[in-house]
């Protein structure tokens, strides 16, 4: 589209993409101003699934907020559980036992792969390929079966506790995870042959949907969106939490900044997560899974606490202010999807509508995480 020529606003066509559109994966609404099929302006409209999670935290005790964390980004619920557990553990100065830390890493990384599998299937579905969705959900099902045997739940796990984990992993889980790792490596090869090399996918993604590094910095985008733009940033390595500094893994970074780069970052991340799980299982120590000195009534001392983790979608930060009582005074959630979504308005300007849908899919948004 000619960038200098702009239709007057009253001659443009206004289209609501969502809130009930299949490609928006939830209740995201984007107000598009179109010139033919080209986008002049796009405004994301938020708040359709706003549930006041931050306010809810101020109305309940510290442990009672646990189920809420898994409902922000339901696809990578364990990372949210982990961040909240780590945050309160930092406030209470609780030392988590080694074994519990390893279990947390193994389950969270498994959950990360499951999250990427949902994105993968849904993303290719957005581009018009239905079959891969069935294959990726088959892989995800294997992970969910494993996690269900440990946590008892398939989606909103609420598995971690302050000071450790409530249930230990058993030999069946470890054997199942090992089988899954070797299976998944083969499947990734199959996905590359089936999808990544597919000419239609390449033409839809390559050199389309630019999100350069400056734009990422401007909006605070993180995760695969930033890494696809060449920003080498991952909380797991830049600010190591839990025991991530003990494992060898690479942070995949691509410099092309197009939809294809973000796609490749996620594909490589799955392999890196498998590497982490493999190392964690090999060095899994024996011992207790809960810390000894966890108080019955959680009352973190007066103060301001912050903790951040890397979720499947980017940097999740939680800031808690405690006044010394059993109820949080304030809990601020910095969710990755919120920043990643707002980038869409600027990034899709001048694009074709169909390409903008591909760009939207490559951002991997979970709308409850945006709206909180």
């Amino acid at each position, binding site marked *: 589209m000619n960038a200098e020529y702009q239709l007057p606003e009253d001659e443009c066509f206004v289209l609501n993409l969502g809130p009930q559109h299949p490609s928006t994966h939830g209740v995201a609404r984007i107000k598009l101003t179109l010139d033919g099929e080209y986008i002049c302006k796009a405004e994301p409209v938020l708040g359709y699934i706003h549930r006041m999670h931050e306010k809810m935290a101020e109305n309940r005790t510290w442990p009672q907020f*646990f189920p809420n964390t898994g409902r922000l980004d339901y696809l990578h619920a364990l990372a949210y559980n982990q961040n909240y557990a780590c945050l309160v553990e930092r406030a209470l100065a609780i030392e988590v036992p080694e074994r519990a830390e390893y279990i947390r890493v193994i389950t969270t990384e498994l959950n990360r792969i499951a999250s990427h599998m949902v994105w993968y299937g849904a993303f290719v579905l957005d581009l018009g390929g239905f079959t891969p969705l069935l294959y990726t959900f088959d892989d995800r099902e294997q992970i969910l079966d494993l996690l269900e045997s440990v946590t*008892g739940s398939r989606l*909103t796990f609420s598995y971690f506790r302050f000071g450790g984990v409530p249930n230990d992993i058993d030999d069946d889980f470890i054997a199942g995870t090992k089988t899954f790792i070797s299976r998944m490596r083969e499947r990734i090869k199959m996905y590359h042959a089936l999808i990544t090399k597919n000419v239609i996918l390449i033409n839809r993604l390559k050199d389309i949907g630019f999100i350069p590094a400056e734009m990422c910095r401007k909006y605070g985008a993180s995760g695969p969106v930033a890494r696809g733009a060449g920003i080498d940033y991952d909380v797991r390595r830049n600010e190591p939490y839990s025991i991530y500094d003990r494992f060898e893994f690479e942070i995949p970074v691509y410099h092309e900044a197009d939809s294809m780069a973000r796609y490749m970052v996620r594909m490589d991340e799955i392999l890196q997560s498998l590497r982490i799980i493999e190392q964690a299982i090999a060095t899994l120590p024996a011992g207790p899974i809960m810390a000894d000195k966890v108080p019955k009534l959680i009352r973190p001392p007066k103060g301001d606490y912050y903790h951040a983790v890397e979720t499947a979608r980017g940097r999740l930060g939680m800031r808690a202010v405690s006044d010394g009582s059993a109820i949080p005074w304030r809990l601020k959630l910095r969710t990755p999807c919120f920043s990643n979504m707002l980038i869409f308005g600027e990034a899709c300007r001048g694009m074709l509508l169909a390409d903008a849908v591909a760009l939207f899919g490559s951002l991997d948004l979970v709308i409850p995480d945006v709206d909180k």
Partner: protein
Amino acid sequence: MAAYIKSILVGTWSLIAGLAITLRFVFKPVVTCQYPHAVPKIPDRYRGHIDFVYDPATCSHKCIVCGMCQKTCPSGCISLEGEKLEGAKKKTLSVYQLNFTTCSLCGLCVEACPTGALTFSKEYNLAGFDEKEYHFDLIKRLQERP
């Protein structure tokens, strides 16, 4: 020109290779669970709604009406009442209602129980027509259990 023809050939080959992969899946075994002809295996730790643990010593439940489950529930879906029977030192449970419509299956109540009176049921077929079907009377459920 040569690059153009090459791109067409490579593109066509990628589609054929993809079709060959999907064709291979046709001859692989079915991966989905054939519900309702086959029933899924429910793991031991499955978190269904809560239920009382049967105590063979008293032929009843282990609840001591401390109200910890009620206090710890984030959604306030448990309501219980106890009454003091004549001659008894402690309260006995008279009403234990679970409002399953607001329960988020977090399991905090089970962990909070000091006597281990609560457990998770393995029920997953919970479709119904009326909200009242999800107000469970746990005492009644325990008595009706074989």
